[in-house]
């Protein structure tokens, strides 16, 4: 009889955990239903490049130039003029109350100045409280305005513009040419979903034993800390595997997210990530005393890892110190790995960095968890 590890004992522990999981119907349903629900909800809901934003138009007269401008703006897909005929005062109120995101003001002398060859001006006021809303819609404007006016007047624009147009800037949007947010969000969601269920479930696994008093019994029997850890962690690992299959299938079938790289490389990355998560959950549960505390610690950990990992906001956009902080989160490295492999078709060499770091997390968390575990009650 090996004192430190026996497969028989480990299987016994896993079986017990599996039975308990099955009996706890609600939790079990949550573990499988929640990923799918969240994927559908967030996959369709989150959009970093919002279109058809409500806008108001303030125009003195309805001449052909104004109409051309409005049409051109609507053609970009960003503007939806729900108030095409607002007064200046109304428009201000609409913007302040958030009913519209933009107010386009065409001055009364717009047509006249245009025909005279003057520099006509139009004013677009954007509600920039959320910078993401304003940026996409505003960035396209310069080109749109000049094209519209060119078409309306049927003449060439002035020479300066022509000279500027001689420098051609060629932009290739790689990996996601249409700029679909879903392609970026859906793989990331896999990480977020796994993180939430895995860490939370395992963090409560051990505290439940302590809370119910079964820990004393477990400790009085010949089981080793390694067996207890694996026995707690592996069943959730199985749940994680099911979640991965569900989310990946849905990404492919429902969101048509491209799978550019090797599926095996992807699985290897996910494996490391899930391992790091379940062991982290176990580590949490060896530190806290109650399930409630476990839940609180998980949530405390959860928020920064969503906000600082590059899931919601661009990682490179954060100040250096926040990037360093972000580097300490497994999710950050998982996102680099999965986006690399799925969207960019990255090879092992391309993502070996994140893979190593994920492996390092596994080792660190496991060592910390095993050293925290006590064979005794003191």
């Amino acid at each position: 009889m090996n004192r430190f590890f026996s497969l028989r004992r480990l299987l016994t522990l896993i079986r017990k955990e599996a039975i308990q999981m099955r009996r706890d119907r609600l939790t079990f349903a949550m573990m499988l239903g929640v990923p799918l629900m969240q994927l559908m909800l967030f996959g369709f809901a989150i959009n970093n490049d919002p279109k058809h934003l409500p806008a108001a138009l303030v125009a003195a007269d309805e001449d052909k130039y104004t109409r051309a401008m409005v049409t051109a703006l609507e053609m970009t897909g960003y503007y939806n003029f729900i108030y095409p005929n607002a007064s200046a005062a109304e428009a201000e109120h609409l913007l302040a109350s958030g009913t519209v995101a933009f107010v386009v003001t065409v001055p009364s002398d717009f047509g006249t100045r245009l025909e005279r060859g003057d520099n006509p001006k139009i004013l677009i006021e954007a509600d920039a409280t959320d910078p993401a809303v304003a940026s996409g819609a505003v960035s396209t404007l310069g080109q749109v305005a000049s094209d519209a006016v060119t078409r309306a007047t049927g003449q060439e624009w002035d020479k300066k513009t022509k000279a500027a147009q001689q420098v051609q800037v060629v932009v290739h949007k790689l990996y996601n040419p249409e700029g679909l947010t879903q392609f970026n969000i859906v793989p990331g969601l896999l990480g977020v979903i796994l993180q939430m269920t895995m860490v939370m479930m395992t963090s409560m696994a051990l505290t439940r034993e302590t809370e119910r008093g079964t820990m004393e019994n477990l400790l009085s029997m010949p089981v080793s800390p390694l067996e207890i850890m694996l026995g707690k962690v592996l069943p959730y690992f199985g749940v994680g595997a099911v979640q991965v299959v569900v989310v990946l299938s849905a990404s492919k079938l429902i969101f048509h997210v491209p799978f550019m790289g090797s599926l095996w490389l992807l699985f290897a990355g996910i494996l490391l990530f899930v391992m790091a998560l379940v062991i982290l959950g176990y580590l949490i549960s060896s530190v806290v005393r109650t399930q409630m505390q476990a839940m609180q610690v998980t949530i405390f950990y959860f928020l920064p890892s969503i906000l600082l990992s590059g899931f919601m906001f661009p990682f490179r956009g954060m100040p250096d110190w926040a990037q360093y902080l972000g580097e300490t989160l497994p999710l950050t490295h998982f996102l680099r790995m999965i986006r690399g492999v799925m969207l960019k078709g990255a090879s092992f060499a391309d993502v070996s960095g994140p893979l190593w770091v994920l492996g390092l997390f596994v080792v660190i968390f496991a060592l910390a968890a095993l050293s925290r575990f006590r064979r005794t009650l003191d």
Partner: protein
Amino acid sequence: MAEENAIEVSGLTKRFGDKTVVDHVSLEVKRGEIAGFLGPNGSGKTTTIRLMCGLLTPDEGEGRVLGHDILHEGPTIKREVGYMTQRFSFYEDLTIEENLSFVAGVYQLGRQAVRDTLADLGLTSRRTQLAGSLSGGWKQRLALAACIMHRPQLLMLDEPTAGVDPKARREFWDEIHERAADGLTVLVSTHYMDEAERCHRINYIAYGKLITRGTVPEVVRDAGLSTFVLKGPRLSEAQRLLKGKPGVDQVAPYGTDLHVIGRNRVELERSVTEAASATQSDAKPAETSLEDVFIQLMGEAQDNMA
């Protein structure tokens, strides 16, 4: 392993913070003996048991359980000892059979062991019932089944009959005696005097200190107490009169009787006679009960602490 004693520990001490919960306790339990472990709530019984079965590390002291050093051979002790916790600590969301299969797996026993244990303790017909839905008596039966399944040589039972009805208690003790006859050593902690009297030897612990030990008659004799029983119509008045009189240590009504107990027989007799004549009661010397001894010991131990 030819040692005579299953448990032999000395000077066991455990502190939690600045509180000494177990204070230099020494215990000896012979093989095949049922040893009672008595003491008031919070006296350190549970902690002492946990120290002996490797669940806690003592701050001081040493000893051997089944010939294994308690400081270094915890895992071996765990394998050879059956420990039944005070609070039911099996899985309430598992059935009886699943709980036993779990224990069997951990001790690496075959399926047959589970079947035998189920049959042995009359649990077969209830084996698919969830442990959480069992009554106190059945829970205790399951817990006992689980901790004797791996055929330990020593059983440590921590207040096994708390919250169990008299019939189930009786059956439980019969079971324990049967196993002791087969050579099993049992250390059982309890509050019940009738249970203490069913033990071969008892150890009395109060406020972390071992106060007395021996067989029941030995403990009663060593306490050196005298008891008088008063019968009469005005016992409550007699009780008031006797409180605090020289020689009187305890006055306790038992139904229609009044027990008066004291260490100094001469003074006690004088006080009792006075009170009896004042209240027209009838006073007779009687046997001192184990309970009276314990209450006496408890009061004295507290005095020592103060």
